């Protein structure tokens, strides 16, 4: 940390100022002048929180995507289909058992199995053939999309939020002052907070596994240099299958999460795939911290965009992507090689 | 060629050298593949760079051609600072190299490979028009093929050539256009004794104004085609001299000749 401040004094200063400004915006009672420039504080704060929680969802999807790409050079364009598949599975299981947790776990396990099958039956036979693998995932995404449409129809579904997670909670941020001077506090859906915390815990856990365990070392070594991985004598295929299963499972899990605070319908697979693409392009391919950074940026851009410039909200994320590509083609967090 | 070139590095004016490296280092993580290499080669000079595997010879080449950029230091080519130039800009200034592992276009014929190389350093690289039969570059390509003794197989696909012939073709590619300085990366590796004779003959009959650096493990080849030698070890230069001096140097004998040939 101090190392960074020493190397990049100006950047550190800018970051500190930005953090301080953000803290001020969050905690201060807004003056009329500020309300005039930024709109209501409630709107600002909910855009901020929605952006962060949306970033949490994107992280769940994109981290699996980026891990699979980093290790196997497989651009899994069926990743969005895995997401939607997981969402539908979670919906069905949730209806069957009435348990949200059961839905979450079932979606993870079933989609992970599906991912495992994809790796075992298809991709391991075309190792090193990037283009062919990608084409196969395109074919799969078309097939899965139509199969899901066949069995679930074109209706919109939502996974039911469990009782203990439903409803808003009060956050310690003052939104406005009543005329009698009483502070109005920010209310925010508990389930979103829970999901965000879940995503953060998962992210830290993934980081720890990747950096502190033997299997994580192997995966990281494989991301850096695949030949080396096979030279160490580990069973590369086993590592590949596990990583593919885990990445796919995460997408399935994210499907349930997304189905809880957004909705499930045909076309959602493409949308989530595009978001993951942008996330990993911005963050840098193959990097988990990059996925986190990209997810946060894209989530915030989408939410703030839709509040402050509704016409071009979606464009904003792509503009960010183009700028990143032009300045740092390898992505924000990727190491220049 | 009679005068033995002086090997003092620093007193030669920078503009007078074909190639000049000053304090060039290249790090891979914590590993220094090159550290503080300072080297100058006069126009037309022919030099061997010797050293055990991992001594930094190929990294040196990669820094000179621009495949890697050095972590620090300056590289001048005929007086011009090319340290930050991309490879193709250096090539267009007359630098050439061959690769240790054959790096040719296997799907094209011999003459087409050379034709492509001639195109690369000519104008009209982007030409959308097909060449005429009497195209000058086509002629240039054919005569280069002849110069490396490959006329008999000029219309064969490169993928079908024998290994030694591919090595010879590598040299033809390096001779395309108007080379002023060439880097040969182990041109004799994998060649039979007769092919080595052929190689020596090709190298010694190059026009006198073309200088080169050759990395070579075969001392019989290396010392017959150069007038000066640079010894490298662990990414550093530790000795420079004429072939005879190097061969008889006890330190060199122990470090390199002893290990490599013992």
């Amino acid at each position: 940390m101090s190392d960074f401040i020493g190397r990049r004094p100006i950047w550190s200063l800018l970051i500190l100022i930005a953090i301080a400004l953000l803290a001020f915006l969050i905690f201060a009672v807004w003056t009329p002048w500020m309300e005039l420039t930024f709109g209501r504080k409630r709107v600002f704060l909910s855009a901020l929180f929605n952006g962060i929680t949306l970033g949490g969802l994107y992280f769940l999807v994109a981290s699996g995507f980026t891990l699979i790409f980093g290790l196997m050079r497989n651009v899994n364009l069926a990743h969005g289909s895995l997401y939607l598949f997981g969402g539908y599975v979670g919906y069905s299981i949730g209806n069957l058992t009435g348990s949200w947790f059961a839905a979450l776990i079932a979606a993870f396990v079933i989609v992970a199995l599906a991912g495992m099958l994809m790796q075992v039956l298809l991709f391991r036979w075309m190792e090193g053939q990037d283009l062919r693998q990608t084409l196969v995932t395109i074919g799969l995404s078309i097939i899965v999309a139509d199969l899901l449409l066949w069995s679930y129809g074109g209706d919109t579904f939502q996974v039911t939020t469990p009782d203990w997670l439903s409803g808003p909670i009060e956050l310690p941020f003052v939104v406005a002052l009543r005329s009698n001077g009483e502070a109005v506090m920010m209310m925010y859906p508990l389930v979103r907070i829970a999901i965000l915390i879940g995503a953060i815990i998962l992210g830290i856990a993934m980081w720890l596994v990747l950096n502190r365990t033997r299997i994580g070392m192997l995966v990281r070594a494989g991301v850096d240099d695949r030949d080396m991985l096979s030279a160490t004598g580990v069973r590369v295929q086993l590592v590949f299958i596990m990583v593919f299963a885990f990445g796919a499972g995460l997408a399935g899990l994210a499907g349930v999460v997304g189905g809880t605070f957004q909705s499930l319908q045909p076309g959602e697979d493409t949308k989530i795939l595009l978001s993951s693409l942008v996330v990993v392009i911005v963050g840098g391919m193959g990097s988990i911290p990059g996925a986190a950074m990209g997810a946060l940026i894209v989530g915030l851009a989408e939410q703030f965009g839709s509040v402050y410039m509704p016409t071009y909200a979606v464009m904003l994320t792509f503009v960010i992507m183009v700028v990143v590509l032009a300045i740092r083609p390898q992505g924000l967090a990727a190491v220049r090689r | 060629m009679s005068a033995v070139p002086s090997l003092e590095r620093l007193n030669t004016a920078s503009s007078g050298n074909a190639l000049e490296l000053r304090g060039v280092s290249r790090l891979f993580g914590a590993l220094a593949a090159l550290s503080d290499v300072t080297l100058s080669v006069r126009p037309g000079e022919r030099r061997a760079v010797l050293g055990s595997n991992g001594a930094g010879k190929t990294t040196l080449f990669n820094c000179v051609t621009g495949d890697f950029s050095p972590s620090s230091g300056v590289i001048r080519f005929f007086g011009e600072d090319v340290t930050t130039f991309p490879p193709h800009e250096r090539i267009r200034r007359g630098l050439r190299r061959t690769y240790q592992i054959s790096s040719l276009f296997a799907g094209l014929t011999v003459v087409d490979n050379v034709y492509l190389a001639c195109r690369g350093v000519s104008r009209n690289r982007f030409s959308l028009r097909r060449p005429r039969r009497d195209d000058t570059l086509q002629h240039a390509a054919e005569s280069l093929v002849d110069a490396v003794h490959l006329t008999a197989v000029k219309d064969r696909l490169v993928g079908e050539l024998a290994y030694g012939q591919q090595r010879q073709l590598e040299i033809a590619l390096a001779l395309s256009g108007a080379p002023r300085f060439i880097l040969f990366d182990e041109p004799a590796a994998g060649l039979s004794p007769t092919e080595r004779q052929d190689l020596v003959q090709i190298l010694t009959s190059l026009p006198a104004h073309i200088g080169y650096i050759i990395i070579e493990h075969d001392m019989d080849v290396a010392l017959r085609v150069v007038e000066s030698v640079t010894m490298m070890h662990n990414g550093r230069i530790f000795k420079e001299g004429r072939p005879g001096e190097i061969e008889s140097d006890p330190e060199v004998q122990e470090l390199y000749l002893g290990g490599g040939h013992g």
Partner: protein
Amino acid sequence: MALAEPRLAIATPRPREGLSEVIARQGTAFWIVAALLLVMPLLANPFWLVQILAYAMILGMIALSLMFLAGYGGIVSLIQMTVAAFAAYLVAIFGDSAITQISLKWPWWTAVPVAILLATVFGTLGGALSVRTEGIYTIMITLAIGSAFYYLTLQNYTIFNGFSGFNGVLPPAFLGIDWGSTVPFYYLTLGCAALAYAVVVYVSRAPFGLALQGTRDNPRRMAALGFDVVAHRIAAYAFAAVIAAFAGVLLVWYQRQVSPGTGGVGPVVDMLIIAVVGGLSRPIGPFIGALVYVLLRTFSLDLLDWVGFEGKRYQLLIGLGFLVIVLFSPDGLIGIWQRLRDRYRKSRETQAAQMRVGGGSP
């Protein structure tokens, strides 16, 4: 980056030959197809002429521009459909359409060249953005750029007229011919497609095309021969964009309308599917792929109903067909055709040999 698994095109530079030599070199299959296409208006009804053949040729041209980049340059760009859609939009914006408050009503001979020029610039810039990254990464970036364009057209009303786009875009009438009517439109498309095909074949053997194939096989080596690999790839994007832009103009004249869906993620991916199904190794592949695709789209409903399946499942059919091709014939339908032909030839040769050898025995 190993990108070269479908057997990629290898064209050697040939010294320039006279037209007669070129003509003499073509096989009989070429002449049969050419003659058939020329006399097609006598054989086929308007539906087949326009809805099937002309449409397939337009899609084939877009896929051809993708094939040029992928087959010769090793660059799998999904941006080609977007370039075509952009050109289509520009024709509607500069020319005439039913959306009179936006369309500028320029005559076609200014609107079309400007549209093609701007679309080419767009394709080149998109290429310049994605070219610095390598291999499979290109697919993702071009897909993302394509969807950015899709959302732009969807959300912008002042220029692109948002969700509804432009309708009433009519082909022009000049030289006393209404190019929108069936037979002239067929010949117009045929002419453009044939020209695009010929140009791609020609350029693939010109120094530029040759160098492009060099950058595909060994970019580092090409740089060491003095080629600016990045500049070559960007130039290839520009060349491919011209073809896609022409196709886009034809597309808007064919559909008489253009909307965000024209350049949506579906069509963008469809172009890749068309090119791959046809085969990335030769310029004829995209046209074959496009024909198959159009036939499937048009008739799969009936076909599926006929075999007692729900007609709505044609996406499933396309997906499965695509998967089968990718898994079993990486060089597409062309690859299957070539293998069949080789086998036929071989069997005929062995037959002939047996006849010769076995001629004496009973």
